[in-house]
């Protein structure tokens, strides 16, 4: 019973913080609200018996992705972002389309009956969430697991290539080094 009320509280906080994420002017407050949403969702995952996913959510999303966001916000000029006007007439169309999409999702989700009683890959009774993930990740889902490692490798290479400073040719770097050495003497 207490778990049910905890689920309601976490979900309510998650929705409130999600609204706060998209209406804050300052990107730092927005990022803080998004961290709150992710922590609340991690609490929900614990209630849903997915402890491994909850731990990974905190480590990967909060610990890696949001830290990256905050670093990039630090590099940008947030004084300009604070001057963004939130309310003007052209924006009302975006609000209408967004609310229509949300209502459509809610109506379809409400009117659709879930026909299946039991999914594929049943969870054995004596295994906890972490063991289940490990068991199926390295047997049935070994190919997507390998593919996702290649995707992450491409992500690393892409970030390095995009973040590198533009250099017209290869010899410029050595020239700069020679100049600095010459200037010290």
């Amino acid at each position, binding site marked *: 019973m207490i778990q049910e009320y905890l689920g309601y509280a976490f979900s309510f906080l998650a929705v409130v913080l999600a609204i706060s994420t998209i209406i804050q002017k300052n990107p730092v407050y927005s990022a803080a609200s998004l961290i709150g949403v992710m922590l609340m969702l991690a609490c929900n995952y614990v209630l849903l018996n997915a402890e491994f996913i909850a731990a990974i959510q905190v480590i990967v999303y909060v610990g890696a992705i949001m830290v990256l966001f905050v670093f990039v916000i630090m590099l940008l000029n947030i004084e300009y972002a604070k001057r963004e006007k939130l309310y003007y007439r052209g924006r009302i169309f975006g609000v209408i389309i*967004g609310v229509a999409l949300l209502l459509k999702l809610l109506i379809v989700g409400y009117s659709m009956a879930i026909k299946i009683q039991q999914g594929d890959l049943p969870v054995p009774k004596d295994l906890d969430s972490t063991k289940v993930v490990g068991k199926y990740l390295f047997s049935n889902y070994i190919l997507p697991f390998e593919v996702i490692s290649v995707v992450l490798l491409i992500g690393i290479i892409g970030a390095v290539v995009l973040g590198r400073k533009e250099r017209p040719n290869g010899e410029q770097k050595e020239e700069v080094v020679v100049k600095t050495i010459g200037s010290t003497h």
Partner: protein
Amino acid sequence: MISQMNFFLLTGLLIFGIGALGLLIRRNLIICFMSIELMLNGVNLIFVTFSHYLQSAVGVLYVLFIMALAAAEVAIGLAIILLIYRLKGTVDMDSLNTMKG
């Protein structure tokens, strides 16, 4: 009174919809990117809810793959945002009109 499964599904749908709304109404590239993360989180919650109530492991495994994809996407997307900032001096979407779109 709705059941608790429907309540978690409703939460996931609401977070997804709020993320889509933020993507539509905000003009700051960083906040639009955060809205995409919100949408991914809403989908993750729906996956885990179905995985728990249908006693199936597929949802949990897909959440892992979505998280790995989100990490790669954020690394590349933030690098692109930094490049745009270096090029234009701003991250406002309305100033990105080079392609006359």
